[in-house]
């Protein structure tokens, strides 16, 4: 590499010598400068080219792309041409001769089409298929023109070439059959001896996954049987991971009164470790708009699959709405605004099983305050969290999902914190799904005792809570008390919702705010897209002329 650099650096001087006539008018210093710039530019270009080639090769290696070109495929030679679905006597000598013209030629779809349609016109019968089968020699094929009504049984699964094989056996590996319902076992048994049907096998896979979740995951394999006529279907069951990686999340959300927010994360994962870099510009989640980056490292198997740890570092710049600053001036007991926030958050998580996790850790945040003079203050807190999530299927094949989270943060002088407070937050969510109908109920509650910085305070009125309200109209500096509930009904992608909640400061009076709305919502839990109109209810009246429009996706 060093040698290459030297070689590249020397050559441009000779090129520059040729330009010496042009440079003669320049001073000696400027001539040197021109020569130096000339050489540097060439070196840079060569290095850039080298880097491009290296990157190209390394990307190809990482993603398993081999640079060599696959072999060009020659078209097969037609060994014979036959007709099916038509009585022999209806095929005239001319038609037979026409078909024979194809024999010995390389297969050409247009030529085959021409012959097929000539036959179709001659016998007034509709062609249903042109099929190519393997010939007796390599590189040779047999062509068959099928006429008449297409086979009724030819649906998606019959187009699977393996449907010609018989299922020899259906196995459940990795778990006792006693854990599976009688109906699923019956369906597995019914497959044995029948033609391989991938759709039926997939249905059984879905049933098994539903019945064995969340502690186990199921995959399906189809392998050769003992004889060439048979295949075996194997359902492999493995224990589900106790811990999953935390997602910082990719999202883009827009609120008609709060502008847009977005977050992008780039994870690099190897086995049980994941490093994530994320950038964020968010005016949705907190009272402030924070923008900056965050880095995290997470391990989900620290010696045992029950234990994991994670450490996150973040650095944000903060912007504040005028409404917040005005409200702060009237609330001297609430700490002021800060310009920057930098923090680190190490946590240790223990999983009792895939559903129940307990985390403990610390959160150290340093904020740069602007008033009365620029100074720094810390909010250092101990963290404890309990999360529980489970889903199940009832006898009527309806899906249920229940999740509950509790998070406590305690900032004390022992942790060298300038803010002394405890923060409790709980959330409960239940989802019921039956065919295209889905019902979602959510409840949240929170309380802060002591004096917490603004990023810890509760808020309502963003793209996910009290949809229809603007958080800066409702509580521009948030509150230290929170109650919230939401009911939502979804049919296919359409949604109707009713949200109600209140956020206030202890000792102050408060009233509950309500909102209703409708919109579109994705059916996929992994990537949630929404397109929603929310309308506030003030003094018991829906105010359709003051709607809030929200759209976005979290994935």
């Amino acid at each position, binding site marked *: 590499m060093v040698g290459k650099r030297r070689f590249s650096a020397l050559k441009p001087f000779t090129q520059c010598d040729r330009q010496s006539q042009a440079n003669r008018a320049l001073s000696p210093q400027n001539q040197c400068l021109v020569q130096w710039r000339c050489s540097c530019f060439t070196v840079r270009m060569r290095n850039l080219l080298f880097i491009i080639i290296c990157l190209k090769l390394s990307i190809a290696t990482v993603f398993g792309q081999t640079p060599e070109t696959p072999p060009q495929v020659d078209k097969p030679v037609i060994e014979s041409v036959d007709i099916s679905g038509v009585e022999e006597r209806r095929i005239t000598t001319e038609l037979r001769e026409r078909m024979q013209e194809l024999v010995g030629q390389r297969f050409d779809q247009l030529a085959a089409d021409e012959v*097929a349609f000539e036959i179709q016109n001659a016998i007034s019968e509709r062609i249903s298929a042109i099929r190519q089968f393997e010939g007796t020699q390599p590189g040779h094929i047999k062509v068959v023109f099928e006429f008449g009504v297409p086979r009724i049984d030819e649906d998606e699964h019959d187009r699977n070439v393996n449907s010609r094989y018989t299922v020899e056996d259906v196995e459940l590996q990795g778990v006792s059959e006693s854990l599976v319902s009688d109906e699923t076992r019956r369906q597995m048994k019914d497959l044995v001896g029948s033609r391989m049907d991938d759709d039926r096998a997939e249905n059984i896979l879905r049933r098994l996954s539903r019945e064995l979740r969340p502690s186990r995951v199921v995959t399906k394999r189809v392998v050769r049987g003992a004889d060439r006529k048979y295949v075996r279907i194997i359902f492999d069951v493995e224990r589900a991971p106790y811990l999953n990686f935390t997602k910082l999340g990719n999202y883009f959300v827009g609120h008609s009164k709060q502008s847009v927010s977005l977050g992008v994360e780039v994870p690099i994962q190897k086995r049980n470790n994941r490093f994530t870099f994320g950038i964020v510009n968010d005016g949705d989640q907190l009272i402030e708009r924070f923008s900056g980056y965050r880095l995290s490292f997470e391990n989900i198997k620290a010696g045992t699959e029950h234990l994991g740890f994670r450490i996150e570092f973040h650095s944000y710049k903060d912007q504040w709405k005028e409404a917040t600053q005005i409200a702060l001036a009237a609330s001297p007991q609430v700490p002021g605004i800060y310009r920057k926030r930098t923090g680190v958050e190490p946590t240790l998580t223990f999983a009792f099983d895939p559903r129940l996790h307990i985390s403990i850790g610390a959160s150290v945040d340093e904020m740069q305050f602007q008033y009365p003079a620029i100074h720094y203050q810390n909010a250092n807190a101990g963290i404890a969290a309990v999360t529980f999530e489970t889903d199940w299927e009832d006898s009527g094949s309806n899906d249920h999902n229940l999740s509950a989270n509790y998070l406590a943060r305690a900032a004390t002088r022992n942790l060298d914190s300038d803010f002394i407070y405890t923060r409790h937050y709980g959330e409960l969510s239940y989802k019921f799904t039956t065919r295209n109908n889905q019902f979602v109920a959510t409840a949240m509650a929170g309380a802060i005792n002591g004096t917490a910085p603004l990023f810890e305070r509760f808020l309502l009125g963003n793209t996910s809570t009290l949809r229809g309200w603007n958080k800066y109209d409702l509580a521009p500096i948030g509150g230290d008390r929170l109650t919230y509930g939401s009911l939502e009904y979804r049919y296919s992608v359409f949604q109707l919702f009713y949200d109600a909640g209140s956020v206030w400061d202890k000792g102050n009076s408060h009233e509950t705010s309500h909102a209703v709305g409708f919109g579109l919502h994705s059916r996929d839990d992994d990537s949630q897209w929404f397109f929603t109109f929310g309308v506030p209810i003030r003094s018991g009246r829906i105010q359709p002329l003051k709607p809030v429009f929200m759209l976005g996706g979290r994935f």
Partner: protein
Amino acid sequence: MLFIACSGSLIAQNLKVRLEADRLRVSGPQVRLLTGRPLDRLRNGGSVIYVLELTVRTEKAGRVLTKVKERFTLSYDLWEEKFSVTRQATPTRSASNLSAAAAQAWCLDSLSIPASQLPGDRTFWVELEYQTEGPPAASKSDSNLTLSSLIDIFSRRSPEEQQLHDIDVVGPFHLEDLRKKR
């Protein structure tokens, strides 16, 4: 940026365009349909539906002049270790005992546009879009936001269904030049 531009241009060269029997056809030894999760599914005995769309445009991202779209069901014979393809159109067209490259070539060969639909007086670009079956991805030409397109977007159930989606664009071509190359 330069790297992205270079890699983009290299990818674009993967698609070969020719005029054969007065029809525009494409071939692409480096277009990889059989790869990744769809290939895993095929090798596990499942079938995968591929949607291929050949589009002729005025410019690289210009107006659509003509296009043809075909759906193919592919499966992999576990015993023969060969691919089978069925074109989902009437009349059905199928081929079996194909290698991976042959199966892919067979699909591409089934896409063609009559030369009569190509502009004779100006250059054009050729775009090949291929994806496995799932909800249709927003096409570059479908910029209008309609209720049905929104429902399509929101109805996407699982990213697993969208396992492969790629677009190759080549050009510009002139009809006369393609005729001379024959």
